[in-house]
């Protein structure tokens, strides 16, 4: 579907070259939700902009359905961009147009007759659940609603690929959840291929099937989300997941007992997760190892506890944590 081969992008500022993307090769399959995660400056935005040619790669090739986008003419590009649409961190809605007219914009570009376009707009607004806001202006909407409008707008031209550029980074966790569910829903219902770039692990974990970790413009690690998450190989990956500790020092190597690894990827610090868990379940826990960092008032890192001997106790713990949206992995000795 979407294939990147040795994509490089070099910027020049004051004559000094800066390699934003280095030799990135990715293969994104039809119908999947592909996540690209990395810290700021990792080159994610540049990379996703190369996919619809808002940026032109310095070298390498990008193929969509086997067709290279590198040498496309202006008019071919305009056609491509109706097939590969995009949503943004700051929504980028037209503030002087109503919600309905924002969604109608791509239809106007395509020259769809007005009556037909209006009908389609209402269908799209129904998909994102904003029919009643059709005549409102974006300034009257909340962040989540704005992103829904942006999604409706991106869907208007019946795209095959949706690029999400930090689409949830400006939203609070609750809204992020709902936007992610919406994306997942669209992916399932319309069979849309979605590429998400983000710096939030939670986003990747919630909806992505495959993930690539970008570090310093290179792909540090790539694979299915489960695999990358449970068997983080790269330094960049561990940094992102909050695993600062050297893998060699982790208790799994030493303690010969079954363990549970609790992963914190962005919880608020005022949530007493472990105490509550203990009080709720009535199970005493033996913390073997913990490495939690606070970044921007959020917790990142992991804690390893001894797995309760009783299977139902262990299940209860896992279920309770999963309910709270916390990842728990079983680690065998």
């Amino acid at each position, binding site marked *: 579907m979407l294939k990147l081969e040795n994509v490089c992008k070099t910027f020049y500022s004051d004559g000094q070259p800066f390699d934003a993307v280095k030799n990135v090769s990715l293969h994104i399959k039809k119908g999947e939700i592909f996540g690209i995660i990395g810290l700021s400056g990792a080159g994610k935005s540049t990379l996703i902009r190369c996919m619809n040619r808002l940026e032109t790669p310095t070298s390498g090739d990008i193929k969509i359905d086997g067709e290279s986008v590198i040498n496309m003419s*202006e008019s071919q590009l305009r056609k*491509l961009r109706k097939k590969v649409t995009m949503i943004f961190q700051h929504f980028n809605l*037209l503030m002087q147009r109503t919600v309905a007219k924002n969604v109608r*914009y791509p239809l106007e570009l395509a020259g769809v007759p007005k009556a037909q376009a209006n009908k389609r707009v209402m269908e799209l607004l129904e998909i994102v659940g904003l029919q009643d806001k059709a005549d409102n202006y974006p*300034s009257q909407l909340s962040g989540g609603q704005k992103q829904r409008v*942006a999604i409706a707008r991106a869907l208007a031209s019946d795209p095959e690929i949706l*690029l999400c550029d930090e689409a949830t980074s400006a939203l609070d966790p609750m809204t992020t959840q709902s936007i992610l569910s919406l994306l997942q829903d669209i992916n399932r219902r319309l069979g849309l291929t979605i590429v998400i770039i983000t710096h939030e692990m939670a986003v990747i974990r919630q909806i992505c099937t495959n993930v690539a970790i970008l570090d310093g413009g290179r792909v540090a690690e790539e694979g299915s989300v489960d695999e990358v998450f449970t068997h983080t190989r790269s330094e960049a990956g561990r940094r992102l997941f909050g695993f600062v500790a050297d893998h060699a020092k982790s208790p799994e190597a030493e303690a010969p007992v079954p363990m549970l690894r609790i992963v914190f990827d962005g919880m608020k610090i005022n949530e007493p997760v472990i105490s509550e868990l203990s009080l709720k379940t009535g199970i005493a826990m033996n913390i073997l190892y913990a490495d939690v960092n606070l970044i921007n008032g959020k917790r990142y890192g992991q804690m390893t506890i001894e797995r309760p001997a009783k299977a139902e106790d262990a299940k209860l713990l896992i279920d309770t944590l999963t309910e709270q949206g916390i990842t728990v992995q079983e680690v065998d000795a």
Partner: protein
Amino acid sequence: MYRKSRIAGFILLIPAVILILLSVSAIFVDNAASPLNKPYEAIRIDDANRLAASTAITDAEETVTRASTRVTDATDAADAAKETTETAMTAEDEGDYDAETKPGELGIAIAAARDAGLDVTDIYDAYVPVVNTELDTLLSDTLTTVKRAESTIEDAVTALTKAEDAILVLVPDAEFEALPELTEANVPKLGDLKGTARFRRRADNYVLRCETAATNVAAVETAAASILDTCKTALNDYKVPLSATLITFAVSRALDLLVYGLILLIIALALLVAPAWLARKWKNPMFRKGVAFIFVVGLLAAALHYTSGETWELMKTNTFDTLYMTIPSTFFAYVVGLPLGVILVITSPGNIRPNKTVNSVLGVIVNFLRSIPFLILLVMLFNVTRLVMGAAIGTRAIIFPLFVAAFPYVARIVEGSINEVDRGVVEAAQAMGSNTFQIITKVLIPESLPSLINGAAICMTTILSYTAMAGSAGGEGLGKVAVIYGLNYRQYDVMYLASLLLVALVQIIQIGGGLLMRAVDHRK
């Protein structure tokens, strides 16, 4: 609650509408110095000229026909006079006198008496005055006819001259080859003859002059026909003036249409759209403010319109002149400045159509024009102004230099407004497959509309302040009045009044622009 304020709105609107209607009707119908008079004055003069030409041609034609008739009469009368005189002379020579009552019969009786050997001297003496009287009557009839013919010829000449003049006004470069013929067609003046001995000479003279008159009339007829042809051709050709005046004509008509079109548009909006909007949007506080604003401005305009007195007449005319200069020059400055501003933005480095050459060349032009003070620009442009506007000085001519001074300013203001548009939104438009034109018309301009409106108000007030220098190039306006009365006549009250009106105009533009800006602003 809304219902109440809606009713209040309508009550407020009714006097406003009445006032506007009154002012408008007064402006358009009664007032000789009304704004509509001015632009259509030229058209009216042209129409009057064409009408005068047509009338003159008709007159000429009629007069020439009359002249022909009169000349025929004159020739007939002269012939009759000639015949009678000849008969009388023959009778006199032969002693063939007519009877007492009828000269012919008396002559026969005298001849018979002479044949009979009678002395006819007494009878003959008695007969002569009778013949003389007869001849006098005939000759005076002839004279009258000749005089009438001559005066008719003069009429014809006058009518043709009028036709000629009318055509000359219309088409100054038209040539009339028939003119010399006309001047040659002079009519000899009549002498005064006395005594019976000169009957024949007089009669001959009259006859000669009748013939001359007839010849003259024939000449006049030929000349007239030629002039009439030229006149008619000129009148037909006049429908499409081919000279350079056409450009001036078009430009001035365009300006007039623009100014009055705008005025009519505003009135139409106020009368047709406002009530419908009122009912729907009265609860919108922005809208209430807008209605109040239009009401106050309408009230001020009506108040100004209905004032009288010399000073106020001066103020009225010059307020109109100020607007007459400001509105078209702002409009044309935007026609050029808006695209220029947009091009300056999109060709700048890192924008959607980066082009260093175009950007820097336009930038230099804009900076160059902006750095020349308006008064100097006004003088520098004299020749160009004459070429474009048909005149270098005067209220209408000033519009061109105002436009040249304003469009670079407008371009910079527009550039600033367009630059306010979020780059992300432009990127989103690109990501949706918009081309450059679509980005300009669907994103850049609509998204910066409130800022553009605000900028337009600023530009308009700047241009308004430039019009104060119009006096230096023969223009009128409040600025000139303030300068002339303040500086030359030391009539400070007039100066302050004119300045106060300028301040009021700036306030109206600024407040109106602000209201409009907030009304179209959905960004916050």
